[in-house]
C-alpha cells in the first residue's frame, strides 16, 4: 500500500468512526429527550413539598470532605444544614488540614468531643477524634491526611443513616437538592446510587451559600464549559441512566445507598478518577452478587460548581479526568465486552473504551491524515472543505440540541441573551476549544503511561454575590 492509499484509508476510517459516534449521540439524545420530557411532566405532580413536611422521607447523611477550607467551611456547612429535608445530618471530614478548618468549626458550632461509635467498615487513615454539635445535626470527623477518597470513606463510616450523599465542600446546592436526588432511592429499594446534573456556577450570583440569579459568565472559557456540561449531563448521562449504564456519578454530588457503597468497598484512594472508578465498581460488584439494581440520574440542575477559567487549570483538570477514565477502564477491563455485566459490559464499557478513551487519539489521527491528504492531493479541496463543514455542523448541532433540551425542560437561563450566547459558544467551541481538549486528553494518555498520579489542583475564585458582580 503506497502512502497515498494509506492516508486515504485512514481518512475513510476516521470518517466511519465519526459517523458511528454521531449516530450513537443521536440515539442518546433521543433517549434523553423522551426521559427529560417525562421527568418534567412528573415533576408537576410529584408533591415534593408535601413529602418534605411529612417526616416520612428516609434520613440522609451528607458527607463533606474538607482540606484547608477554613475560609469557606462555615458558610458551606450552614448551607448544607439548612437544606430542605426532613431529617439529615452533615458529616464534615477534616482530612488533616494544616490550616484552622477544625478550630473554625469547633468555635462556630460549639462542637464537643463525642463518643459516637463509627462503624469502620472501610479502611481509612487514622482518626484523631469525632466531634458533634449540641444544637445542629453536625458531626465532624478529624483524621490524618489521606486524600479526598479516604476522607469520604471515613465520612461514610461515620454516617448513621441508610442514604449517604457525598459532595465537595465548595458545591452550591439548590434547597431541595436532597429531596430530588433521594427520590429515586425512596421510589425503589433497588436503586443503589443517584447522580444529579452539575451546573457551572461561574457568573451566577449567590447569597449566603444559595443561588439567587443564574447568568452566563463574561469569560469565554467557562461559557464553553457550560455548553459542554449541558451536553454531558442533560443529553448524555440521562440516556446512559435510562439504559442503566451510567458509569460516572460526579464526585461533586452523588447519593448512595450506604449498604451498597460498603459492599462495593467505598472510594478507592489510589486513583485520580475516584468517582468514575466507584460507580463502575458498584456496577461490577452488584452484578457479581447477582443483585437487581439500578444506578440512576436525576436530570435536574441541583448542584452548582465553579469551573476553571484559565487554560492552565482547565488543562490539568481534563488531564486528570482522562487519566481517571483510563485507570477505570484498565482496572475493570474484564467487564469489557463481557455479557455477565449486561449492558454495562456490552454497551457502556465498549463505548467508553472506543469513543472516550481512544477518541482523542483517533481525532488527532484524523486531523493529521486530513492535512496530509489535502497536502498530498489525495483528498481534493472542495471535498475537504465540505467534510470539515459537515463535521463542524454536526458538532454545533449537538451543542444547539443540548441548549434546546435545557430550554425545553429546565429553563434555568431566563435571559434571551444567555441562550443566544450559549448557542454562539456552541458554534465557536469547534474552532480551537474542541481541538485543545482533544490534545489535553491525548497527552493524558501519555501521562497515564508514565504513571502520573498527580491530582492537579483546582484554583477557586469563590462564588460571587450581586455586589461583587456589579
Amino acid at each position, binding site marked *: 500500500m503506497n502512502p497515498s492509499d494509506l492516508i486515504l484509508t485512514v481518512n475513510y476510517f476516521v470518517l466511519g468512526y465519526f459517523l458511528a459516534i454521531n449516530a450513537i449521540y443521536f440515539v442518546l439524545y433521543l433517549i434523553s429527550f423522551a426521559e427529560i420530557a417525562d421527568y418534567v411532566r412528573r415533576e408537576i405532580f410529584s408533591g415534593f413539598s408535601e413529602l418534605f413536611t411529612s417526616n*416520612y422521607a428516609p434520613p440522609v447523611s451528607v458527607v463533606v470532605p474538607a482540606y484547608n477550607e477554613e475560609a469557606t467551611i462555615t458558610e458551606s456547612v450552614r448551607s448544607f444544614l439548612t437544606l430542605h429535608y426532613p431529617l439529615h445530618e452533615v458529616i464534615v471530614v477534616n482530612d488533616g488540614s494544616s490550616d484552622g478548618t477544625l478550630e473554625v468549626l469547633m468555635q462556630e458550632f460549639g462542637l464537643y468531643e463525642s463518643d459516637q461509635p463509627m462503624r469502620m467498615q472501610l479502611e481509612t487513615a487514622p482518626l484523631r477524634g469525632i466531634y458533634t454539635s449540641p444544637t445542629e445535626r453536625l458531626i465532624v470527623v478529624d483524621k490524618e491526611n489521606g486524600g479526598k477518597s479516604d476522607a469520604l470513606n471515613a465520612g461514610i463510616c461515620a454516617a448513621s443513616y441508610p442514604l449517604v450523599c457525598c459532595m465537595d465542600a465548595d458545591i452550591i446546592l439548590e434547597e431541595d437538592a436532597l429531596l430530588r436526588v433521594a427520590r429515586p432511592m425512596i421510589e425503589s429499594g433497588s436503586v443503589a446510587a443517584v447522580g444529579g446534573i452539575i451546573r457551572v456556577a461561574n457568573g451566577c450570583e449567590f447569597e449566603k451559600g444559595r443561588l439567587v440569579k443564574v447568568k452566563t459568565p463574561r469569560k469565554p472559557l467557562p461559557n464553553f464549559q457550560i455548553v459542554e456540561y449541558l451536553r454531558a449531563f442533560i443529553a448524555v448521562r440521562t440516556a446512559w441512566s435510562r439504559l442503566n449504564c451510567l458509569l460516572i456519578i460526579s464526585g461533586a454530588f452523588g447519593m448512595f445507598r450506604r449498604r451498597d457503597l460498603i459492599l462495593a468497598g467505598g472510594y478507592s484512594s489510589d486513583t485520580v478518577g475516584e468517582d468514575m472508578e466507584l460507580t463502575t465498581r458498584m456496577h461490577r460488584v452488584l452484578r457479581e452478587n447477582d443483585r437487581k439494581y439500578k444506578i440512576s440520574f436525576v436530570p435536574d440542575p441541583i448542584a452548582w460548581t465553579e469551573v476553571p477559567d484559565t487554560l492552565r487549570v482547565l488543562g490539568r483538570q481534563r488531564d486528570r479526568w482522562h487519566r481517571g477514565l483510563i485507570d477505570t477502564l484498565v482496572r475493570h477491563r474484564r467487564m469489557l465486552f463481557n455479557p455477565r455485566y449486561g449492558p454495562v459490559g456490552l454497551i457502556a464499557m465498549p463505548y467508553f473504551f472506543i469513543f472516550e478513551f481512544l477518541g482523542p487519539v483517533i481525532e488527532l489521527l484524523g486531523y493529521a491524515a486530513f492535512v496530509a491528504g489535502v497536502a498530498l492531493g489525495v483528498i481534493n479541496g472542495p471535498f475537504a472543505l465540505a467534510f470539515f463543514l459537515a463535521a463542524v*455542523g454536526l458538532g454545533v448541532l449537538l451543542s444547539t440540541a443540548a441548549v434546546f433540551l435545557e430550554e425545553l425542560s429546565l429553563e434555568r437561563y431566563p435571559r434571551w441573551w444567555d441562550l443566544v450566547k450559549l448557542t454562539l459558544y456552541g458554534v465557536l467551541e469547534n474552532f480551537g476549544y474542541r481541538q485543545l481538549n482533544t490534545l489535553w486528553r491525548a497527552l493524558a494518555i501519555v501521562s497515564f503511561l508514565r504513571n502520573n498520579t498527580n491530582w492537579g489542583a483546582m484554583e477557586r475564585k469563590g462564588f460571587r454575590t450581586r455586589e461583587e458582580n456589579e
Partner: protein
Amino acid sequence: MQVLAIILWAVTVMFALNVMMIAVTLGIKAARVLRRRRTQTKIERLEAALDQTLISGEVPPALRHLGNRDLDLLATMMVEYLSLLRGTERDRLVRLAKETGLVRAYFDRLRSRGRWRKARAAENLGYFGGPEAAAPLANLLAHRDETLRAVAARALAHIGTPEAAGALAQMLNDPSELTRLRMAENLERIGTLAVGSLSETLERGNPPARVLAARVLGNLRVHDARPALRETMREGAFPDLRAQAALALGKIGDPDDIPALLEAAEDGAWPVRAQVASALGAIGDVSTIPTLQKLTVDTEWWVRLNASRALANMGPAGEKALARLLEGEDRYTRDRAAATLEERGITRRAVRELDAPGEKGEGARAMIRAMVRAGAVRYLERLARTLPDEGARETLRRTMREARES
C-alpha cells in the same frame, strides 16, 4: 464525486438542522413568554368572574362552557381560594365547581388514557369531587405509575373520609417504599378518621405496613390505639415493629403505659431498648429513672445515648442521676453522661451557678467536680477560657483545681 455530493448534502442538512434547532429553541422561549401573558389576561378575567359569583351566588356566562385549559386555570384559582376561605363561602366555592361543570369534566377526564390528564383530574377532584370521588380515586392507587398513585393518595387525603383512609391504609402493604411513605403521610393528614383503618393495618398488615401504621398512630397521638400498641410492643414478631410501637407509646405519652415500657426495656433487641429509653424520656416520669440508669450501661451505644438523653429530660432528678453516672465504673457511661450534660446546656448552667448559695450552688459544684474526676474536662477548659465574665472563669478554674487536688 459522489462522496463529495453526499458531504455537500450533509453540510446543507447540518446547516438547516442547526438553524431549525436554534429557531425552535428561541421559538419555545418566545411562545412561553406569549403564553404567560395570555394566561395572565385569562386569569384576570376568570378571577373577576369568580369574585362576582362568590358575591352574587349566580354563575356568570364567563364561567360556563369553558375549554380544557381554562377549566384547569379556573380549578387552580379555586384551589387557591379554598385555602383562604372558610365556612359557607368555602361550601359555595365547592358548589360552584359542580355548577360550572368542572367536577363532571374531571370525572370524565379521570377515565381518559393520558396519565397526566388523569393526574390533573385526580388532583382537582381531591378538592372538589367530594366523597363520591373516593372510589374512582382509590382505583387509581393501583395504577402502575408511581406519580399518579401519589396524586391519587393526596387527593384521597383531601377528601378525608373513612373510606378514603381505608383505601390508603390498604396501600401501606405496597412493595414500593415511596408509595408506602406517601400513604402514611396522607393517612396522618386525614387524622382521627384514619384511626380505624390504621389499627386494622397494625393488626393484619404485612411487616412494613404494620411498622408504618404504628408510626402514624404515634404521630397522631391516638390514645385509643395504646392497648394495640402495647400488645405489638410485647408480641411483635420483629424488632423494628416492637421498637416503633415503643416509640409511638412515648409520643402518646400516657404514664399508664410505663409498666409495659419497663417490661420492654428488657427486650433482647437493642432497637427496642433504644426506643423504650426515648419513650420513657418523652413521658418524663421520675419513677423510671432507675431503669434509665440501667439502660445507660447497656452494651449498645444507641441505647446508652437515648437513655442519657432521656435522663436529661427528667428535670433536676434526672440531672442528678446523670451526675451520679459520672462517678460510675464504666468509662463509656461516664463519657456519655458528660456529653449529655454538655449538649443539653446543663454543664454551662452549672458553671454559672457555682457561686450560688445553698443547695443550688452545692449541686453545681458537685457536678463540675464529678466531671473533672470523670476526665471530661475539655469542654470545661474551653468554658474556662471563653466565658465572658472574668469572675465566672476564675470560679470555674478554682473549682476544677480543687476537684483535681481532692
